[in-house]
């Protein structure tokens, strides 16, 4: 079963439209919530006039920050993540005295229909005293800048150094030094389903049930309990079908608190469904960083040292995991040996939507930096980009390799993915074709990136020390009376196919057919606890927890079989769902028979409790470190500047592949999102702090017509830190693809003297770059 590309069990309901997302839940007497959001980027609230709105048809209640303040004494959570001494001002689900980004909730309207609520919302009159919007990262921390948070006193959250090795010596030894500013533009995650919440508080029993389109139902449960002062045992959070996340549904959001509060006030279920025009402002953004890089290298391509400063635009608040993006600095060394690394991260508040995790979360930024550096070094030294990478690779004999900043890679030979990708794309042949095309005036380019990725968060101690959250995997494997199985997992998928993959894992151990194994998730009322889904962690943690629970169940089944067969436990062999005494497989008893016996406790060995069930909290010894090499071939249209991706080759090593079809699917989507960042996507704000790309008409994500077919290859280096040998794959595509495309565009335009291009490489930007010298070759 491990390694079988079986079809997903999730799909029949989804292809027939019978899956249930939050907005599809049956609803009785539901109240609709509309959120009046700030139209100002930075302003003091002088007054909110709601009388006229209260008289509108269908309105049940209107609440402002002032109205809810007494129940909102606990702010939204902010995890320490890497910079524990950062300044993290309190954020409440609704603005109290000030608004700090356009889109921040200011008032909520509860009405009998969504339309009535929205109509009434437009009758609310809010008077603001406008303040200067803070938008430029460097100017934001100058002395005369307007300040978002009076209690912080400046717009600087933290300024942290992460350095090791003698960087001065590296630069003294260098033949070549390079300085480059790299921009990670602000991105809007755009899950096709926006967020949505249905909260149902029952008075008298004091029980709260919240359905939310979230990646983290277990976190949301804990924080709803803490913020609303309800016993955790009385809070149930369900993530039903979730229509994509990509990190954007990874935090405890204001709307989850507001719907629950409103339901408690009204004693009726309250629903809020995010519209796209809200989603682009109300759901957190990603990236939004500037990286200033200095490189010291030798003529032979050896990279000696890198200085890298990450300017991190936090937006208006710290968000829950906003500073997790600091990890980009911590893993910036990539697949390479360096003598010195001098990293710095500066977190700055601006009057924009808060930033937080978006697919890859810090690791695409790190990969972008080091892989641009490798190409820049190649350009300066006149060496082939492939050779520069080979020169600097961590070698397989160095594994487990410890980086300058003290992280230890689990395994990997980085030449195997690179070699395979080069062979798949036909690298030597391409260079000849490129030279010929250049003679014909065509701009053909090839771009390469290799990556390593930290994921599988995490070992509990390491993640707690670094991020403040103790992370592990959880599973329950419960064999029923008839031999059917329920597997409960702590992860909370939203497209990743856990219901299929983890059934394969359990089936592999127990020999019970996949069809007889049901995998349940995303409901805090079931199972002890979970750490949910993000950071490509689920299979490395929860998937392995399923394996371990199934092994425990198998052990107990063998004990029961020994008793029933009147044999010694050590003589029992368990194979293909049957147990028998070594050498006599014809007298086997099936797992179904054993399961039946497990619930007839009189048939069990003396002292054994009934049931055939095991629970596992899996805490591995290290993170997992997938790696790979991606190569893109692009053609740039000399007349329009349009970039076309002709070929995209990716060779990824994520250890054991439980369901290769699902793995490839994760890569396809991840690659497309990274290509989207490279070519199309950018959240643009005007000088007043208003989002100008406020709809999918203006914020472009990749369409079918923009994408090539992907050519995927694989190598398999099992991780030594978990029993299945799995690593993560959810983010790998995105981590490698943006820089692969940019490297290819720069390569195509190399004859014009182009050394770098900022993302997104829109036709206009490319065309201007091509024509800045009148289009002459340099």
């Amino acid at each position: 079963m491990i390694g079988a590309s079986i079809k997903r069990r999730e799909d029949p309901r989804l292809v027939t439209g019978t899956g249930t997302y939050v907005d599809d839940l049956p609803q009785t007497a539901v109240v609709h919530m509309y959120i009046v959001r700030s139209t100002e980027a930075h302003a003091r609230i002088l007054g909110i006039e709601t009388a006229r709105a209260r008289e509108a048809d269908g309105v049940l209640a209107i609440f402002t920050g002032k109205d809810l303040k007494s129940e909102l004494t606990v702010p939204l959570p902010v995890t320490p993540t890497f910079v524990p001494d950062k300044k993290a001002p309190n954020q409440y689900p609704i603005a109290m005295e000030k608004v700090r980004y356009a889109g921040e909730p200011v008032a909520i309207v509860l009405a009998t229909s969504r339309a009535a609520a929205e109509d009434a919302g437009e009758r609310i009159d809010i008077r603001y005293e406008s303040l200067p919007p803070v938008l430029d990262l460097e100017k934001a921390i100058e002395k005369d800048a307007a300040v978002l948070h009076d209690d912080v006193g400046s717009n600087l959250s933290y300024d942290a150094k992460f350095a090791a090795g003698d960087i001065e010596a590296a630069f003294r030894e260098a033949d070549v030094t390079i300085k480059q500013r790299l921009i990670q533009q602000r991105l809007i995650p755009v899950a096709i389903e926006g967020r949505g919440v249905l909260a149902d508080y029952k008075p008298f029993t004091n029980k709260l049930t919240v359905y939310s389109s979230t990646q983290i139902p277990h976190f949301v449960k804990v924080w709803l309990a803490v913020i609303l002062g309800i016993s955790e045992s009385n809070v149930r959070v369900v993530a039903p079908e979730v229509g994509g996340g990509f990190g954007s549904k990874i935090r405890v959001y204001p709307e989850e608190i507001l719907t629950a509060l409103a339901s408690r006030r009204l004693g009726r279920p309250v629903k809020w469904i995010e519209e796209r025009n809200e989603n682009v402002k109300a759901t957190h953004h990603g990236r939004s960083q500037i990286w200033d890089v200095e490189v010291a290298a030798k003529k032979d391509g050896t990279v000696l040292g890198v200085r890298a400063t990450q300017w991190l635009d936090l937006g208006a608040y710290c968000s829950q995991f906003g500073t997790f993006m600091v990890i980009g600095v911590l893993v910036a060394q990539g697949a390479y040996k360096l003598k010195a690394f001098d990293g710095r991260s500066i977190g700055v508040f601006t009057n924009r939507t808060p930033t937080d995790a978006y697919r890859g979360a810090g690791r695409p930024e790190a990969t972008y930096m080091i892989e641009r550096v490798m190409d820049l070094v190649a350009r300066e030294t006149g060496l082939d980009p492939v050779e520069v990478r080979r020169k600097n690779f961590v070698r397989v004999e160095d594994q487990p390799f410890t980086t300058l900043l003290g992280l230890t890679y689990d395994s990997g030979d980085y030449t195997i993915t690179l070699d395979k990708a080069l062979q798949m794309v036909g690298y030597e042949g391409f260079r000849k074709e490129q030279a010929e095309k250049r003679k014909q005036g065509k701009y053909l380019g090839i771009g390469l990136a290799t990556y390593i990725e930290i994921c599988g968060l995490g070992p509990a101690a390491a993640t707690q020390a670094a991020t403040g959250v103790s992370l592990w995997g959880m599973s329950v494997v419960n064999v029923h009376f008839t031999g059917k199985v329920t597997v409960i997992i702590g992860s909370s998928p939203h497209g990743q196919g856990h219901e299929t993959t983890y059934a394969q894992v359990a089936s592999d151990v127990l020999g019970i057919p996949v069809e007889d194994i049901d995998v349940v998730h995303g409901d805090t009322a079931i199972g002890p606890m979970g750490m949910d889904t993000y950071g490509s962690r689920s299979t490395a943690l929860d998937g392995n927890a399923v394996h371990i629970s199934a092994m425990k169940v198998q052990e107990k089944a063998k004990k029961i079989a020994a008793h029933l067969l009147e044999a010694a436990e050590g003589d029992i062999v368990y194979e293909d769902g049957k147990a028998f005494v070594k050498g006599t497989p014809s007298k086997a008893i099936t797992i179904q028979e054993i399961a039946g016996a497990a619930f007839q406790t009189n048939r069990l060995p003396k002292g054994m409790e009934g049931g055939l069930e095991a629970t596992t909290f899996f805490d591995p010894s290290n993170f997992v470190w997938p790696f790979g090499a991606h190569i893109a071939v692009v053609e740039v249209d000399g007349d329009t500047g349009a970039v076309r991706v002709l070929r995209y080759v990716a060779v990824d090593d994520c250890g054991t592949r439980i369901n290769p079809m699902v793995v490839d699917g994760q890569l396809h989507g991840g690659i497309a999102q990274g290509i989207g960042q490279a070519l199309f996507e950018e959240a643009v704000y005007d000088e007043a702090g208003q989002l100008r790309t406020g709809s999918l008409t203006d914020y472009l994500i990749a369409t079918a017509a923009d994408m090539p077919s992907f050519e995927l290859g694989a190598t398999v280096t099992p991780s030594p830190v978990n029993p299945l040998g799995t690593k993560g794959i959810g983010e790998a595509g995105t981590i490698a693809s943006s820089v692969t495309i940019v490297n290819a565009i720069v390569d195509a335009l190399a004859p014009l003297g182009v050394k770098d291009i900022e993302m997104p490489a829109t036709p206009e930007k490319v065309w201007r770059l091509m024509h800045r010298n009148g289009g002459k070759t340099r």
Partner: protein
Amino acid sequence: MRRRVAVTINGARHEHEVEPRLLLVQYIRELAGLTGTHVGCDTSNCGACTVEINGHSVKSCTVFAVQADGAEVTTIEGLAKGTTLHPLQQAFWDEHGLQCGFCTPGMIMAAKQLLDRNPNPSEREIRLGLEGNLCRCTGYHNIVKAVQAAAKVLAPGAESKAPASVS
């Protein structure tokens, strides 16, 4: 001011008094109770709400319910015959053409129109034909493969013509 509309959806007649501003997608979801048709944007970009009206593929968030008065509408729920999936549904399943599944109903409805008009499309024609439907999970790779696979099954003279598409 309410208006009476009668719409036949997947062969069943629905009649309601509606506000003129009610969108067809809201009618389908909230009054007809068919929640397989999804809303993914406010601007007709994403295509998650794609349905067929009188045989034409339409983004149902750009149509008022009153405009569909008297029309025959097919939604994703109208494609399967009993428990037998439509070849496109089957192909999306076989080829892993979906992940979170939110765009899938609209994507399948758009693909159905594409194949109705062009039973044997090239890869480029499929990509251009689905440009109005956004998917954030699959990178479109397996969606294209699914449409190619369904085209083979649906092609005139194909061995296993059944199950036929709902017209």
